[in-house]
């Protein structure tokens, strides 16, 4: 019954396969041989798939038979044991049994001939302990797959637990010709084999256990059957027909289960485990006897051997020793092959050792195994396809391998090729197909490894780059922080001078944090501003119009940010002095080593300090010390301004006589640029003022409701006009008190309101004038203009302005009487404003002169002769500008003197000072406007000139430049007309007064 059960195992079939001559009988003539001990045993550390083992012994160590001499090195690795007792002679590179014929690290053991066993510790309780422990034990015993691949058995068994196993297949097919090692093993160790299978079955718990064996091993089959019957085992025997390569793992699985292992998967994935008979015996020896894997059955065969036979050989025995044992005939030996004739590889040398996977040594004569016939062209017979047991398309694979199209080869499942050699065997053109596939496979593998490595390198490179960037960013941040720190220090120093006397400084600690933050922001803003100004400077040097415009816009924006920050800062009393730094920064870009410039910077600095103190004074009107300081500063300012005027006079003198040396010229042009930048900055200030104005208007909505509409339009107009003017500084200082006052006292508020009204009224006048001008430009005659409502509007606006100015005068005087302390503050403010305005006018006038001079110089540089220069309008302009400057300077000294007495003695008759101031003020405003217009005219002229010059230089752009000139001329004309009007209204006003 048992027998019947064993025979019922179904046998299926697989595609392809060949029937080469078996040649198995030769090696079965003699019984199992046991060769003597060789002189040395060579034990390669990499006898298995995976990581090489790590040697545990040193050279000179004495080892006993079965002692562990190398341990596993990672998961996919194995142990190695001493096959006999002896001394470790060396651990060195030796030739190994490998198709490459290369060397690898080996442990060389000199046997002592005693064969002394180490203490054997069999795992007799394997049925009781955990399976993991058994697996670990198998690993320690160095058990690997003995079929050929050498896959560590414990790893394979672990993998088998992925899916419940339906079949546990014992591979005893041994399909390769010549080889009879497994046949002999089954015959010799039948019981051990069955016991080993039982141990493995205990570990894997498969539903069916099938021994697959080819029908060309009747003796072995009979032996097995008898043992199985004896043991009443449930192990089945499946006798498969002889066909190469039925011993292939996947083919045997297909034969016994009818299931095909899917491409790219393992047998375990379909619930099948396959083990070689040799492995089963080794497992038995290890578990029940405690013997590690130190020997194996190997077939010695081939015509070159007189006594072909199977031997049980110690691992590490050199092949030469075995050949000698089997009486090889060197004359007949043409090829020495490790493995079978189908899948084996030629050995270049007989010194290589037997390893755990060596199942056959084939010493073939020339007649037996002739050298491969020369490869011929593929005739597309398709026999390879018929033979392929893996159902591949060998011919396609060949083409792709030949043309290195590995991707396509892979696409055609190259990696499912088991390299059985059936295709090469049947090929009528003797094409070594398997070699091509092997080459392709290793190339692909190499490419993959390179890819992995390059990915790793890329990752590391990117990580490094990220790290470096982070470091750089950190450094930059630190540098910025340091910069901030230094600028903060500078700020602190500046702060120290003016702020110390101020009592408000006491409040510092509370707000110091906030102020610090603001300061940092300001510092950043300033650095940006400086950069922009530098760019602007460059752009102006190169006269790139668009660039200048965009840069000026940027500068303006930056200015705004800084200004707002400064405002915030100013609200924090202790931080207030930070503002001068910003102004200083503005005043001193691109330092020019010129006395004039230095003096001007002094003026600016003092003015700024003055302003600051005045602000403080508004906040703390009772501080006598502050007032004293202000007066002191004003004296300083005056002195500085005197220096400036003197210096500029010197400059005028030198340039007007045309003896200017190269150096002053350069400095002058630098100065001019600086002033241009200042002008751009001032524009920003104007915008700020307008914003403030709007805000104020919103606050005082009910009072100015009537004129609001007009105001808005007027403001727009004013804005446009002021842009054209490029120097609206005159209005700028007003903003400061306008913003500062609401926070401090009511009087200031009132003054502010008045001023706003005044400004609105002025704007209205301007608008009206402009409209009239426009009408005129449009060629309307006077009658038409008169007919339109504009003249009347103008008149109205002018009246309103006059009224307001009167009001203003009264208003300013009233609080000064009522509140003695605040009045001087207000007047001081106004004085300072006036002073500033004058200063700015002065600067502008100087700029005009310089520009004129520069242009003259340019003309000279262009080697125009004197007459031409004379013909151009520049000399005239220069003289004009100089006259203007002189006038301004004259003005300067007069009013500058006025505020000094007005502010210093606070107890003095405030009334009279206020009165005089009130009279001066409205006139001053008009005068300022006139000046502004004049400057606008000058600027427009300058622009026209510049454009003319460009026209000369680049005639190819003539059209566009001409257009620009036209536009500039229009502007000039309008500015001139406006100027006229202003002068007219000024005279009117004076008459009114």
């Amino acid at each position, binding site marked *: 019954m048992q027998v019947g059960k064993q025979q019922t195992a179904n046998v299926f079939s697989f595609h392809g396969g060949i029937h080469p001559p078996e040649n198995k009988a030769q090696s079965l003539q003699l019984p199992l041989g046991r060769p003597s001990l060789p002189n040395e045993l060579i034990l390669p550390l*990499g006898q298995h798939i995976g990581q090489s083992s790590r040697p545990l012994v040193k050279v000179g160590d004495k080892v006993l038979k079965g002692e562990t001499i190398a341990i596993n090195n990672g998961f996919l690795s194995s142990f190695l044991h001493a096959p006999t007792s002896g001394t470790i002679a060396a651990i060195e590179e030796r030739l*190994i049994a*490998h*198709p*490459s014929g*290369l*060397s*690898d690290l080996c442990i060389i053991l000199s046997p002592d001939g005693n064969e002394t066993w180490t203490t054997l510790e069999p795992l007799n309780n394997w049925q009781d302990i955990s399976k993991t422990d058994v697996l670990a034990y198998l690993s320690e015993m160095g058990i690997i797959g003995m079929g050929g691949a050498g896959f560590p058995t414990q790893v394979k068994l672990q993998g088998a637990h992925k899916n419940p196993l339906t079949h546990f297949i014992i591979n005893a097919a041994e399909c390769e010709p010549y080889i009879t090692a497994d046949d002999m093993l089954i015959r010799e160790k039948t019981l051990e084999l069955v016991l080993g299978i039982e141990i493995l079955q205990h570990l894997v718990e498969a539903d069916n256990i099938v021994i697959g064996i080819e029908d060309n091993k009747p003796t072995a089959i009979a032996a097995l059957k008898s043992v199985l019957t004896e043991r009443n085992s449930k192990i089945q025997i499946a006798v498969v027909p002889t066909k190469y390569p039925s011993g292939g793992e996947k083919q045997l699985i297909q034969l016994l289960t009818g299931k095909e292992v899917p491409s790219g998967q393992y047998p375990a994935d379909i619930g099948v485990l396959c083990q070689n008979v040799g492995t089963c015996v080794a497992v038995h020896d290890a578990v029940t006897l405690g013997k590690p894997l130190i020997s194996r059955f190997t077939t010695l065969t081939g015509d070159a051997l007189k006594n072909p036979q199977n031997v049980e050989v110690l691992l590490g025995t050199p092949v030469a020793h075995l050949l000698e044992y089997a009486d090889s005939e060197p004359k007949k030996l043409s090829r020495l092959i490790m493995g079978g004739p189908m899948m084996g590889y030629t050995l270049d040398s007989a010194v290589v050792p037997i390893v755990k996977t060596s199942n056959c040594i084939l010493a073939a004569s020339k007649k037996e195994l002739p050298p491969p016939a*020369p*490869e*011929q*062209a593929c005739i597309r017979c398709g026999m390879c396809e018929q033979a392929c047991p893996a159902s591949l398309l060998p011919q396609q694979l060949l083409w792709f391998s*030949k043309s*290195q199209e590995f991707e396509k080869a892979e696409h055609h499942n190259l990696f499912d090729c088991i390299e059985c050699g059936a295709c090469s065997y049947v090929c009528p053109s003797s094409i*070594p197909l398997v*070699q*091509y596939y*092997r*080459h392709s*496979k*290793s*190339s692909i*593998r*190499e*490419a993959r490894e*390179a890819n992995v*490595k*390059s*990915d*790793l*390198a*890329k990752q*590391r*490179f990117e*990580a*490094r780059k990220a790290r470096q960037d982070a470091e750089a960013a950190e450094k930059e941040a630190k540098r910025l922080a340091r910069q901030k720190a230094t600028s903060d220090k500078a700020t602190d120093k500046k702060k120290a001078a003016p702020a110390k006397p101020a009592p408000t400084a006491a409040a510092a600690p509370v707000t110091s944090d906030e102020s610090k933050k603001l300061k940092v922001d300001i510092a950043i803003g300033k650095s940006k501003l400086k950069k922009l100004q530098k760019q602007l400077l460059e752009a102006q040097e190169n006269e790139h119009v668009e660039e200048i415009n965009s840069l000026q816009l940027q500068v303006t924006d930056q200015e705004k940010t800084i200004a707002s920050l400064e405002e915030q800062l100013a609200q924090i009393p202790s931080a207030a002095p930070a503002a001068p730094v910003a102004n200083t920064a503005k005043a001193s870009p691109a330092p020019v080593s010129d006395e004039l410039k230095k003096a001007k910077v002094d003026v600016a600095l003092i003015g700024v300090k003055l302003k600051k103190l005045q602000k403080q004074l508004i906040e703390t009107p009772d501080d006598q010390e502050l007032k004293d300081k202000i007066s002191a500063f004003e004296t300083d300012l005056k002195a500085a301004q005197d220096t400036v005027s003197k210096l500029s006079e010197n400059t005028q003198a030198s340039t007007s006589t045309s003896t200017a040396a190269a150096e002053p010229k350069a400095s002058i042009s630098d100065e001019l640029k600086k002033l241009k930048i200042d002008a751009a900055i001032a524009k920003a200030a104007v915008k700020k003022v307008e914003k403030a104005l709007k805000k104020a208007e919103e606050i005082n909505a009910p009072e100015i409701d009537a004129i609001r509409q007009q105001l808005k339009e007027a403001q727009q107009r004013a804005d446009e006009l002021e842009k054209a003017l490029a120097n609206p500084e005159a209005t700028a200082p007003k903003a400061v008190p306008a913003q500062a006052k609401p926070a401090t006292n009511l009087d200031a508020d009132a003054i502010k309101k008045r001023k706003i009204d005044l400004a609105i009224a002025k704007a209205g006048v301007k608008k009206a004038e402009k409209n009239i001008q426009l009408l005129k430009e449009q060629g309307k005659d006077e009658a038409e203009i008169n007919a339109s409502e504009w003249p009347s509007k103008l008149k109205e606006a002018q009246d309103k302005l006059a009224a307001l100015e009167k009001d203003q005068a009264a208003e300013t005087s009233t609080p000064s009487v009522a509140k003695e302390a605040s009045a001087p503050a207000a007047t001081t403010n106004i004085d300072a404003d006036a002073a500033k305005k004058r200063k700015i006018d002065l600067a502008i006038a100087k700029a005009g002169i310089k520009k004129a001079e520069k242009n003259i110089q340019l003309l000279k540089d262009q080697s125009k002769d004197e007459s031409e220069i004379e013909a151009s309008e520049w000399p005239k302009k220069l003289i004009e500008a100089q006259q203007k400057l002189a006038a301004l300077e004259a003005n300067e000294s007069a009013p500058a003197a006025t505020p000094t007495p007005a502010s210093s003695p606070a107890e003095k008759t405030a009334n009279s000072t206020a009165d005089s101031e009130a009279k001066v003020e409205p006139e001053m405003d008009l005068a300022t406007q006139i000046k502004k217009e004049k400057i606008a005219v000058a600027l427009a002229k300058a622009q026209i000139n510049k454009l003319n010059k460009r026209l000369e230089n680049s005639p190819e752009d003539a059209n566009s430049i001409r257009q620009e000139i036209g536009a500039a001329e229009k502007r000039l004309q309008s500015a001139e007309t406006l100027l006229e009007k202003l002068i007219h209204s000024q005279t009117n006003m004076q008459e009114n007064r």
Partner: protein
Amino acid sequence: MFTVLLAIGILVLLSLIFGAILGYANVRFHVEGDPIVDQIDALLPQTQCGQCGHPGCRPYAEAIANGEAINHCPPGGQVTIQALADLLDVEAVPLDGDHGTENAKRVAVIREDECIGCTKCIQACPVDAILGAAKQMHTVIADECTGCDLCVEPCPVDCIDMVEVGVTAKTWSWDKPQGIAATSLNIIATDRQAEVTH
């Protein structure tokens, strides 16, 4: 005259309509960046050696995407050139000798007793494959080394060697069979003649 004007008018109208369609498509199907760079970059050996004249493999990938020759990468060699040629559907050209020659794979090895611990090579290594600290001996992590040579130049005591990575039994690969040509048994006469002239 009217016919001519009509014809022109119709054509102009058509052109305007189509122009509008294309304009819309241009906005709708606007392509950001160049995704091809990633694919090229993936094919390069990532040694970051700079032999191509670019500071790293990605910049060269970008350059290739912008039309630079594909044969400037000595570490990648002919294999990389072939892969790039396949990807970009251009002719595979031999390696440009100006950028170096294709060498066997090498790794840097520091003669450690000569190392003075200057960390210069550490800074030069693009893949952080050198271990060490100031005044401490340095060593190369062979597995991470891409063999780019960049560390050799900065070493003040010339203690870095570029050592060829030999073939071991594990890294060995099968040779390609010699093929038909080597056997002089070509059936086709023209092929045989071509061989002789070679």
